[in-house]
């Protein structure tokens, strides 16, 4: 076993266990904190894949923004369902069975796939360059359109969620 494999295994164990904790813990804020740990583990996985840009963006966007937003929302809605009452549906056992079947199916279908064992060499300096991605994102025959569309998507999300969440002052008076 090489050092890299060891790091992968540790990171994977952290990701899986904290993801499990985050879907099962009773208090929502704990779930959110476990979620953060899982995200950090995923960032380590990205770093092992040598996609540094995504590793950092994972921390920046998920931990720095999405997780904080989730914690804010938890704080705003925390009177309901906190520490009392059942946190889960009745179908827990049933779901466990279904999910295990899906996992087994995934593993089974993967087993027959020829490229399963494929290995890869370390990336060259050219492939590590984030600028290549930038060029591809702005080239008209590349991904310029999806790139602009993402900004429209975010604009829609911003306007929509401000419209939904913002307290209308007139209504209150």
């Amino acid at each position, binding site marked *: 076993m090489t050092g890299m494999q060891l790091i992968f295994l540790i990171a994977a164990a952290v990701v899986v266990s904290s993801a499990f904790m985050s879907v099962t813990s009773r208090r929502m804020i704990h779930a959110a904190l476990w979620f953060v740990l899982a995200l950090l583990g995923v960032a380590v996985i990205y770093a092992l*894949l040598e996609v540094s840009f995504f590793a950092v963006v994972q921390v920046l966007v998920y931990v720095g923004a999405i997780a904080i937003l989730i914690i804010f929302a938890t704080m705003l809605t925390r009177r309901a369902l906190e520490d009392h009452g059942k946190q889960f549906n009745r179908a827990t056992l049933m779901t466990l069975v279904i999910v295990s079947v899906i996992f087994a199916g995934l593993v089974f279908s993967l087993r027959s796939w020829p490229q399963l064992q494929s290995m890869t060499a370390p990336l060259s300096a050219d492939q590590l360059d984030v600028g290549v991605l930038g060029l591809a994102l702005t080239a008209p025959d590349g991904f310029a359109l999806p790139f602009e569309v993402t900004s429209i998507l975010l604009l829609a999300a911003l306007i929509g969620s401000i419209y939904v969440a913002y307290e209308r002052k007139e209504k209150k008076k």
Partner: protein
Amino acid sequence: MIPLYWYLLLAALLFCIGLFGVITRKNAVGILISIELMLNAANINLLAFWRYLYSDTGDLRGQVFVIIIFVVAAAEAAVGLAMIISAYRQKQTVVANEIDSMKG
């Protein structure tokens, strides 16, 4: 070096955990967290495939896809949480089953 299927197994496991959460959680915020976990599993898969099978070809679709998933995850979190907060303010509940004002 790490073989490709390690990443795939991890992603599959993460996806299944997320799926479990989505189905069993009552709290809408919890459901959202679970969905984010599933999106992360998809991201791991996309990047692993790109890295192992496409990084030599100069094909960047894998990375671009991941970027778009990041954006979608952010948008989803923003809108989803805003709706949860709004529903909470009107109904004092975050239980997904009880938020049913769209029902006829």
